């Protein structure tokens, strides 16, 4: 196959920004693109102009250099980290047109991985007896509720096998569609030797899949890197900023405006002063040539820009980054978010979003692997009217099953899977007692399925199932002594209670979504013909023989009980067949299956005919295991006013079922709306009906408030009662349309629970985008697989579930941890604290800088508006960096208003964050007013106290330098005390920082005003002696005391009164008695989903002779049991697909399309 010379995207993805030489210039260039840094550069340039330089150059340079170097260091570290993340380079070299070899079962963790490849050829498997030539499975890992996907190579290429010479000599041309994100479709042709072969979805492998059931295959790379379907589905990577960041941008602009206003006022003041006083004072204060009052005012404007620059504090951004970094480390370090089982700690992958974790209003959660473990376990069963699976004590009381409950010992069965656990010994007893019903029950389970067994070593069985449910059932049968050993197209080999028996497989009546059942017809070694059927209880019940009615009643009771526990059930039935009738039926079946017209229908009719008068055997109950603590976490989060939407690729029934078992959907809910229409009008109508049901008479037009010209925001509405909304992917495609999205969103927001099922990755992102667009709320998306990537990227915060091998979600996420339940701690504790700390930090930071700066404003009236600073220049340089930096950092890193236990006990404490209550424009304004007050006190108290006064020895103390020292000392004390007031959690570190900073202030001040410093550089340290002469005066200290106390006391009084008069949730929370966490019990009687993969089965394949060519290995004794439930390596994931484009919607309604895989990562390839 020729490699095209045309330029294709290579598989490489570049992530590092710098190299050693470009780092400095590039980084500096980048940094100066930030407004704040550019602003300080301009300031620096202004300061170099002597006429307006009101401050020495070092006042700006020192902080700027410090800030730049800290940021540069951080950037450099980030870059080094991302370089290290680049893995094996060979994947980068893969190009479109290459033929590569992929091997079975291996995957490479890492994001560089593969391309979109099409397998043209696959060899005969070397070891795996169940794999056909030219067939491949792309994987369903055991941890995912996914189907294996069958891929088949073209005959023309498949026949080449692993003959590399032949492969290399193969000459052909592939024409195919351009890169797109549609996972279920592919069209193209292969031209070879004048022949055209059509290529469809069955001939391609997607990036991220894992190869199964074949040892290797060859493939041609069609698309690489970002052009692959997986990457096309990932959504755009956007640089995420927090709402505090956005608010800060607005505020900084406001501050700039305010700065300009202040400077203009002061310039006007200067103009007036120059005219009225300055022009008379020229005898002593001559003006420079060409400077008149107006020009002087102009210069003053710029001089004041320099002096008042501290309103936009340069260290603010850097401090914010440090705080976020610190709070991110806390997440990394948290042992309560460490999952010991998988040895996975939580990880803050983004260190810039922490405070937003405290403001989450909407959570979008994936289901499989996120809410559930994607482990199906055979939990209970009802056989012949007796329910097994519960542990009953001697008093007949049902015991709760926990880790310590004694499990059944499988030693009697050498082929058992030791990982399977069951607690009810009576079932084993029943098996051992050879109860015929029990035996038939398990025989059915071992025969009626499409699982394939792989036995690489004897006794080491690996099951490869279409769905985890099936795997669980077959594994259960295996452990109870009915071991499915192997299959050929015509037979199934089972080891029944140690005896190997081979059943002739006469027909598989496969599963589909309408039939909701599957049957097999087998002939036992004894020659008995039997039909075994399993399926959804309702379907089976319709087909039972009347004689079963009594058993039906009992079994129905059991089924209801199982359903109440959230288990997925299947009813099992069997039927002995008459040889003659079957022969005749088989004849008709053969005719029907080769019919050219209406084949499906004809077959359905035949199936319908034979599957009747069944004898009920019992029922199975499979648990779709939720992750630990999921219902409790969801309960806590909804207590915190967080809305949780489940967006899943799963079938509606599965999704609903999980909704119930997570306590998101409840029986007591007023109504649960299910939207599953197939055209625009129906969807609209269903949504309107829902709206009317929730809010009768609600106006059809959504209440929208416009913010500015473009942004619309839907307000939150009050609802009476609780409602749930379930919408499927088809309807969602319409609901997300521009004309309906507001209606949909409104209905969805009125509901307590929203579940979207069968949604595509892109739709997930669209839902998130929709909420982001119209709700002024912070969103979080949590998921574990590649199909969640787009939503994780779209949401404000993306959380990946780590610890399982799927990496794609984690790699695109901002935070990752191993269990869904850690979300509670991430939000309610870490998020809340981060938000609180950030808000406290910002309020305080603005306060201290505004106060610092505004004093200049008042002094302007006493220095002829000449841009004379109140403070010593060194103090200006060091104020933000040395004297006040650490205490506020300490507060922002350690503060806790309530501890984590309180946060859990009072989820409502989270609400202020969602409402932006701790830091908003109002809070900022208040903080500015507070600063004005403080600055007035800070200037006028020293002013009045020093006016015309002298030292106690009659010498000067009202001089400029003493006044500067006095004011700055007052300021340092005031901001320190204010910090003490703001800080609610004084650790030793905080004490050290606060007292240390005060000590530092005096130490540095005395040092800089010392003789030695002056003698070393007289012009730089003109304040010599001021500290000594001033700070030994009692009236100076009395002034400092008065000023600091006067600044702070009103704040204390205000806060105290506020607590009394308008207690916030925090104040209220404290006196409440801690409430015990109620154990959530489900009391649903709703029938759960049935335990099928909900996809078209592949019975055809199983019975295809081409497929199963090799005979089974003849089993012998001496097994080593290492087998696992299913033999897949845990990787990749599934996603149901439903179309986003309208062209897709005319698919047949009755049969669900086979679900497609999104593969999370890797395949291994050996070139």
């Amino acid at each position, binding site marked *: 196959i020729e490699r095209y010379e045309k330029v294709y995207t290579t598989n490489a993805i570049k992530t590092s920004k710098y190299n050693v030489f470009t780092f400095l210039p590039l980084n500096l260039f980048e940094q100066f693109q930030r407004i704040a840094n550019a602003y300080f550069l301009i300031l620096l340039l202004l300061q170099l102009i002597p006429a307006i330089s009101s401050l020495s150059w070092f006042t700006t340079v020192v902080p700027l250099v410090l800030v730049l170097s800290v940021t540069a260091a951080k950037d450099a570290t980030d870059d080094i980290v991302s370089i290290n993340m680049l893995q094996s380079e060979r994947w980068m070299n893969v190009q479109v047109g290459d033929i590569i070899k992929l091997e079975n079962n291996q995957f490479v963790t890492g994001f560089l991985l593969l391309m979109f490849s099409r397998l043209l050829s696959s060899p005969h498997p070397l070891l795996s007896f169940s794999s056909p030539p030219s067939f491949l499975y792309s994987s369903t890992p055991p941890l995912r509720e996914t189907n294996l996907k069958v891929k088949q190579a073209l005959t023309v290429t498949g026949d080449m096998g692993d003959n590399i010479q032949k492969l290399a000599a193969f000459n052909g041309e592939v024409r195919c569609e351009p890169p797109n994100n549609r996972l279920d479709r592919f069209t193209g042709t292969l031209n070879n030797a004048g022949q055209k072969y059509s290529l469809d979805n069955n001939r391609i492998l997607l990036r991220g899949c894992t190869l199964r059931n074949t040892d290797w295959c060859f493939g041609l790379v069609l698309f690489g890197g970002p052009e692959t379907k997986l990457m096309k589905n990932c959504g755009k990577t956007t640089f995420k900023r927090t709402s505090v960041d956005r608010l800060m941008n607005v505020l900084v602009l406001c501050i700039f405006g305010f700065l300009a206003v202040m400077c203009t006022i002061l310039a006007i003041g200067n103009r007036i002063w120059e005219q009225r006083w300055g022009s008379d004072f020229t005898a002593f204060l001559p003006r420079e040539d060409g400077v008149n009052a107006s020009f002087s005012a102009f210069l003053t404007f710029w001089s004041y820009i320099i002096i008042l620059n501290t309103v936009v504090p340069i260290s603010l951004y850097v401090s914010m980054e440090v705080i976020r970094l610190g709070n991110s480390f806390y997440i990394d370090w948290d042992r309560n978010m460490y999952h010991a089982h998988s040895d996975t700690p939580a990880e803050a992958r983004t260190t810039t979003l922490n405070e937003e974790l405290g403001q989450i209003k909407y959570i979008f959660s994936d289901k499989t692997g996120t809410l559930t473990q994607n482990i199906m376990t055979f939990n209970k069963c009802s056989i012949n009217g007796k329910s097994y699976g519960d542990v009953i004590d001697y008093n007949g009381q049902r015991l709760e099953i926990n880790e310590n409950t004694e499990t059944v010992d499988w030693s009697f069965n050498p082929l058992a899977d030791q990982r399977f656990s069951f607690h009810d010994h009576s079932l084993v007893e029943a098996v051992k007692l050879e109860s015929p019903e029990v035996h038939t029950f398990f025989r059915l389970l071992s025969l009626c399925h499409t699982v394939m067994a792989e036995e690489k070593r004897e006794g080491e069985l690996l099951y490869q199932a279409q769905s985890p449910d099936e795997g669980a059932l077959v594994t259960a049968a295996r452990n109870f002594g009915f071991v499915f050993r192997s299959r050929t197209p015509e037979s199934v080999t089972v080891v029944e209670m140690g005896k190997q028996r081979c059943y002739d497989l006469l027909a598989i009546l496969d599963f589909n979504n309408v039939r909701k059942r599957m049957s097999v017809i087998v002939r036992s070694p004894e020659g008995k013909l039997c039909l075994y059927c399993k399926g959804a209880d309702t379907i089976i019940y319709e087909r039972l023989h009347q004689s079963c009615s009594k058993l039906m009643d009992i079994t129905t009771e059991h089924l209801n009980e199982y359903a109440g526990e959230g288990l997925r059930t299947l009813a099992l039935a069997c039927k002995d067949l008459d040889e003659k009738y079957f022969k005749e039926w088989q004849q008709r079946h053969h005719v029907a299956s080769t019919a050219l017209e209406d084949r499906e229908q004809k077959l359905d009719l035949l199936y319908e005919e034979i599957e009747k008068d069944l004898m009920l055997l019992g029922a199975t109950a499979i648990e779709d295991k939720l992750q630990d603590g999921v219902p409790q976490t969801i309960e806590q989060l909804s207590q915190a006013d967080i809305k949780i939407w489940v967006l899943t690729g799963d079938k509606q029934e599965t999704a609903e079922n999980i909704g119930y078992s997570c306590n998101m959907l409840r029986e007591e809910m007023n109504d649960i709306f299910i939207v599953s229409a197939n055209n625009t009008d129906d969807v609209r109508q269903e949504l309107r009906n829902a709206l009317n049901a929730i809010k009768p008479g609600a106006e059809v037009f959504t209440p929208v408030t416009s913010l500015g010209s473009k942004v619309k925001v839907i307000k939150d509405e009050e609802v009476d009662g609780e409602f749930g909304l379930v919408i499927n992917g088809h309807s969602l495609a319409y609901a997300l349309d521009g004309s309906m999205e507001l209606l949909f969103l409104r209905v969805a927001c009125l509901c307590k629970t929203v579940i979207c099922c069968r949604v595509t990755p892109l739709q997930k992102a669209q839902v998130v985008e929709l909420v982001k667009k119209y709700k002024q709320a912070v969103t979080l998306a949590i998921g574990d697989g590649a199909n969640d990537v787009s939503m994780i990227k779209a949401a404000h915060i993306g959380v990946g579930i780590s610890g399982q091998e799927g990496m794609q979600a984690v790699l695109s996420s901002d935070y990752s941890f191993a269990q869904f339940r850690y979300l509670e701690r991430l939000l309610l504790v870490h998020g809340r604290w981060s938000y609180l700390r950030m808000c406290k930090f910002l309020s305080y930071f603005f306060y201290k800088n505004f106060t610092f700066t505004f004093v200049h404003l008042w002094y302007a009236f006493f220095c002829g508006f000449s841009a004379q600073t109140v403070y010593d220049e060194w103090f200006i340089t060091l104020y933000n960096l040395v004297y006040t930096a650490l205490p506020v950092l300490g507060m922002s890193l350690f503060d806790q208003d309530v501890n984590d236990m309180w946060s859990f006990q009072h989820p409502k404490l989270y609400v202020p964050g969602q409402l932006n209550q701790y830091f908003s424009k109002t809070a900022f304004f208040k903080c500015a007013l507070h600063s004005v007050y403080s600055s007035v006190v800070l200037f006028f108290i020293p002013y009045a106290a*020093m006016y015309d006064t002298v030292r106690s020895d009659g010498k000067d103390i009202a001089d400029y330098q003493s006044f500067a020292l006095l004011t700055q000392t007052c300021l340092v004390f005031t901001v320190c005390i204010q910090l003490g007031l703001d800080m609610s959690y004084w650790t030793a570190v905080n004490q050290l920082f606060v007292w240390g900073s005060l000590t530092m202030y005096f130490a540095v001040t005395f040092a800089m005003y010392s003789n030695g410093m002056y003698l070393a550089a007289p*012009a730089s340290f003109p304040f010599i002696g001021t500290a000594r002469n001033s700070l030994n005066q009692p009236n100076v200290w009395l002034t400092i005391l008065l000023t600091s106390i006067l600044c702070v006391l009103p704040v204390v009084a205000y806060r105290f009164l506020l607590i009394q008069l308008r207690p916030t949730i925090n104040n209220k929370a404290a006196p409440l008695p801690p409430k015990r966490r109620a154990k959530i019990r489900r009391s649903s009687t709703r029938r759960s989903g049935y335990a099928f993969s909900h996809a078209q089965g592949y019975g055809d394949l199983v019975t295809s002779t081409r497929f199963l060519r090799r005979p089974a290995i003849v089993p012998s004794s001496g097994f080593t049991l290492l087998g696992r439930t299913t033999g897949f390596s845990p990787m990749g994931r599934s996603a149901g697909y439903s179309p986003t484009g309208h062209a897709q919607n005319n698919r047949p309604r009755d049969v669900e399309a086979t679900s497609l895989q999104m593969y999370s990562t890797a395949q291994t390839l050996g070139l």
Partner: protein
Amino acid sequence: MPKKELETANRPDNTAFTQQRLPAWQPILSAGIVIPGFVLIGLAFIGIGVALFLTSRNITVLEMDYTGVETTSDCYKCSAGTLPNCVCNLYFTLNETFPGTVYFYYGLSNYFQSYRKFGASRDDNQLSGDTYYFTSPLAVCTPYQYDVNNNPIVPCGISANSMFNDTFNLYQLVNGSKTVPLDGRGIAWWSDYNIKFRNPTSDPLRNAFNGTVKPPFWSKPVFELDLTDKSNNGFLNQDFLVWMRRAALPNFRKLYRRITGPDYASGLPPGNYTIEIAYNYPVMSFNGRKKVVLSNVSWMGGKNDFLGVAYLVVGSLCIVMSMVMLIVYAKFKFPDDV
């Protein structure tokens, strides 16, 4: 067990710091702290306020304007600035003893020593006796950096050039006039006199100033400021030092002399006095005022009623506030408990 270790290799450390469980003091603004706190602060402030107020009240200050704005003033003749070496007298009478050591200040108002350029226009290197800057003063000294002939001005700059040059003599009028001795030593800060300002090391002093010129407004060069006392000459002249310690506000007073003579060590006795003023410094042009101030001092420095009053007011407000808070607390606390 290596396997065990491997399994938990990523487990975060269990320290109080990483788990955010550092022991901490968690103060709360509870009624039990805030209300008594306010009362205590209030009482303490009232106490301090009373002490300050009484002290300030006991300080005697005599302030006399001699700008000569009013035609009745003796200095009116000088205020126009047309008479060279104008001398005027300022009479005052003390009915009772002016107790304690009396300090003699001159005061200026509407005088913007606080203007940025005024303060900045000086060369501290020069003033610390560094002769390099005698030949090339700093540029901030402009327009008093070089004179028209490009000779460097020492001391350069607006600050120095504008030095106050009125001189005062105080006489007690008892049987004619009796000079009250005024002590001009030790009126500047010790650190200014000993560290910050240094004369260049040359003998005689004037040699160091060769090639430089005096500030244009000065009548004599800096090395002739006090030819009688070497230690008060040049940059160490205490009047110069006092002037160069720039005032923070446009209205200020600066120490001129202390009255320490044997007859007056414990205060000025009652009687008539006159101050003979050599009126040189023009302030009328910018609407400024000049005054002389006689004052004694206390532990809290000069007279300043503000601090005492402020303490009293703040203390009282604290008491009032504590009552308000007590009422609010009492009123709102109980429904909460129900």
